């Protein structure tokens, strides 16, 4: 396998898309192009145009060197890589959606608005919140929407200068502190106790009048449900700080518990996790944000939903049509230019409609079953341990530590991951959460069959065996994948850094250094 970079093809001035003849008549009528010389491009972009057949072949080959849920299990912890049903693909990619302009007259898009309106309502009911915006384009974007909303909340209350801190557990995803920073907050970290819950003492020590909010993932990235969530909520609310629910792990409690019932004020959902829209190699996602519609300012009649960024679909009783409500004066405003990522939104709609509440509850049941069954299968495998919350049931995921293995054989979590790759599995999330040494975070979701889980566990046992018997062999993994060990240092070094073909070529020519 050695597929050329598309730009290595000779540029013969060819184009693979027939555009001509349609517009000849308008060009004849118009005559010359009058664009001022100073901004007129002299030569077309240096991009070889290829016949469609060569484009298809090239990207077909590249796709065959890619790996997704369609190729086999992708038990990446915290990523909820479940199957992406094809019925949703067929509907979400429908041209009757693709061809709609976001600023089109609402009366011309009633079908889509009805779908989006219902989705807002369903997500509110699933989370136990009151109002959902479908605006954010991804989970982290939802977090940004959420923390900006927290900021607006304190601004409206006139305390933005005081409320400077967002508390985040040490097991949190990197996006949480990063989002807090994006909204101008300072992040305060609280540790996780041995039982897998947040250390309440430590939390009490940091919560205070500077606290603007708390962001937590529940179940946590350890796959554990926060047992003292009631106390946490109460404590944080005492300081009029808001509770933010990171929905990354909702797949573990879907239909069993709702952030709204736990007292959270704001929650985001990852539709490309829990609601089966595909990851696409890193997007598009969709990260709706839902809030409790609590009163923020009684005199001015401002509620929390008024602060949310983005557009809301509302039903105009009087005219009997759905309308798009643009963000009002108290709102965060817009965090992307237009509505939201409609394709994943419709995908999630189809998913929810096809499962109904019964099916959604079965999702978390099957996901949690898979996790705990897997735990039983690998319990006692030499070299691995499951830190935190000993004996507790995990929810959507489990975190193994290969610390003993690493210490005793030198075979690290990364080596284990490559050993799984070699057996045709996608590797687990490694070295995350940060509080677990040599972490391997595994999440099967409800999509994987019992056979796949068992095969995966078998492979882990085999890896353990090889590591103890012949650690040198284990250090050679992966050997079955398309490329061998990659030179990451070269990739990152300023001298050799080549983030585009253009840079690579210019460095070869000595034009850049």
């Amino acid at each position: 396998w050695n597929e050329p970079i598309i730009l290595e093809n000779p540029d013969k001035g060819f184009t693979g898309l027939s555009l001509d003849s349609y517009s000849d008549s308008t060009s004849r009528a118009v005559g010359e192009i009058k664009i001022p010389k100073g901004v007129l491009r002299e030569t077309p972009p240096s991009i070889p145009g290829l016949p469609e057949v060569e484009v298809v072949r090239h990207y077909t080959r590249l796709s065959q060197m890619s790996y997704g849920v369609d190729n086999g299990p992708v038990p990446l912890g915290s990523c909820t890589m479940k199957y992406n049903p094809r019925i949703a693909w067929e509907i979400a990619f429908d041209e009757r959606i693709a061809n709609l302009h976001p600023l089109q007259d609402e009366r011309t898009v009633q079908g889509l608005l009805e779908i989006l309106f219902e989705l807002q309502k369903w997500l509110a009911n699933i989370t136990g919140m009151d109002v959902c915006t479908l605006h954010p384009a991804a989970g982290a974007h939802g977090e940004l929407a959420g923390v900006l909303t927290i900021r607006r909340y304190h601004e409206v209350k006139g305390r933005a200068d005081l409320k400077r801190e967002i508390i985040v557990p040490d097991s949190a995803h990197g996006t949480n502190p990063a989002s807090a920073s994006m909204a101008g907050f300072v992040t305060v970290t609280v540790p996780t106790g041995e039982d897998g819950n947040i250390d309440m003492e430590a939390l009490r020590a940091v919560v205070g009048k500077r606290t603007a909010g708390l962001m937590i993932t529940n179940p946590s990235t350890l796959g554990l449900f926060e047992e003292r969530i009631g106390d946490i909520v109460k404590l944080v609310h005492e300081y009029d700080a808001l509770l933010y629910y990171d929905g990354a792990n909702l797949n573990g409690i879907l239909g069993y518990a709702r952030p709204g019932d736990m007292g959270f004020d704001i929650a985001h959902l990852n539709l490309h996790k829990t609601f089966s829209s595909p990851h696409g190699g890193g997007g598009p996602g969709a990260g709706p944000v839902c809030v409790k519609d609590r009163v923020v300012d009684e005199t001015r009649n401002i509620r929390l939903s008024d602060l949310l960024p983005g557009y809301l679909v509302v039903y105009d009783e009087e005219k009997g049509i759905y309308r798009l409500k643009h963000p009002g004066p108290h709102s965060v405003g817009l965090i992307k230019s237009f509505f939201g990522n409609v394709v994943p939104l419709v995908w999630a709609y189809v998913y929810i409609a096809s499962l109904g509440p019964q099916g959604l509850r079965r999702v978390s049941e099957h996901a949690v079953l898979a996790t705990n069954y897997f735990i039983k299968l690998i319990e006692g495998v030499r070299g691995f341990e499951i830190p935190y919350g000993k004996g507790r049931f995990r929810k959507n995921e489990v975190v193994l530590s290969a610390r003993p293995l690493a210490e005793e054989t030198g075979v690290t979590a990364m080596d284990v991951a490559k050993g799984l790759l070699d057996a045709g599995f996608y590797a687990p999330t490694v070295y995350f959460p940060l509080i677990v040494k040599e972490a391997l975070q595994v999440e099967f979701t409800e999509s994987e069959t019992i056979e796949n889980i068992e095969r995966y566990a078998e492979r882990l046992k085999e890896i353990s065996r090889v590591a103890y018997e012949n650690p040198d062999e284990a250090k050679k993994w992966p050997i079955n994948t398309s490329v061998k060990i990659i030179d990451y240092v070269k990739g990152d070094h300023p001298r050799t850094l080549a983030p585009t073909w253009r840079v690579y070529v210019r460095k070869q020519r000595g034009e850049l250094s």
Partner: protein
Amino acid sequence: MLKTIGVKSVEELFSDIPETYRLKFEDWLRLDIGFGRPLSEVELKRLMDEKLSKNTVLRTPPFMGGGVYPHYVPPVVKYTISRGEFLTAYTPYQAEISQGLMQAIFEYQSLMAELLEMDVVNASMYDWGSALAEAVLMVARVNKGRSKFLIPKNTNPFHKRVVEAYTRPHGIRLVEVGYDRVTGEVDLEDVKSKLDSETAGVYVQYPNFFGVIESGVKEVFELAHERGALTVAGVYPVSLGLLKPPGELGADIAVGEGQSLGLGMNYGGPHLGIFAVRYDMKLIRQMPGRLIGLTTTRDGSERAFSMVLQTREQHIRREKATSNICTNEALMAIAAAVYMSLLGGTGLRRLSEINYYNAHYAQMKLSEAGLDTKVFESDFFNEFPVSFNGVGLRYREVHEGLLARRIHGGLYVGDYYPELGETALFAFTEVHSKDDIDLLAGTLSEILRGERGVP
């Protein structure tokens, strides 16, 4: 499985959820979620068909732009991104079995770099607005200590709102620069007067929100550089077949919307935020978002791809990251790569020309229909304002007349630019045939003559 785990029922696995918060099955079922029961695929398909058939079938693609444009999506693009190996892949953190995916994203970066003539392009942002907002934040990081950012009034107002939301917590002052009422271009004098040692950066969108081609971008950028400010260009890729690329005009950063390169309008998303910088490590280190780089295997024998400069990103750097972005628009970037590979430079040039010609033909026809299509003097690309101030009709009435004939007219801009009054931006691309344009002109002319309603 239950036996192996040692529980009697699956509910037991949820026993750690405090009872106060644990939902009873009956209560959950009672909630308004989906249609109250699982739908079979057969009924789901029928149901969705019925819902989508409530959207109006227009006679032509809408004559509307404002940052999102109806463009032709070659089926090969949809085919490629529908292939499960791409569609269902995760972010390529595991380089060894994601080489194809990484090459595809690298190719997007590389193709876009050629289109922009900028050296470094990231793997994508959400959209133009958020890409611009991140650019402003980046400018503030690079030009630490400077807190002012100049943003012209003829910038897309939707993008401006995103910039406001992103920058507000960071104390960045957005200073508006006016536009010339005659040409429609950025007012160079106003730029000069507002550029100072406090200015971290300057933005110019070209073509600007009015569709007008900014002929003075280079001058603005030169002025900015003289004052130590960074320059940010906003581009519409389809125009770059005809317009000078930002790399040639002195942009430090370029942002834009990739939707026009093979993506549907999708009622607002997914789109594709373009983000590019000059090759300068000072800039590159402050870039937001993911970067795929070309490297080799450790033995140097084969090419390989990897994520590079990950230490900028949230999963490593956490609160110190250059952005919180994680999931981006990777699949859309691949779509754009397929699109650019198919068209090539020659096709992109031709596409650009067709867009230009169609819009200019429309200008002729709409003028003939008695409308004021020369609100501004400068040349435009594929979109231009049409003023209804002189015809005695509010644009709303014109719009209703068009809609009654299943034609969707332009974007009313009076709300954002009260000084322009009853004015709407009309956009024309390669999807609009001459017949479509003639139909629009004819219908507008009917409406002006008072023949409302369905013909």
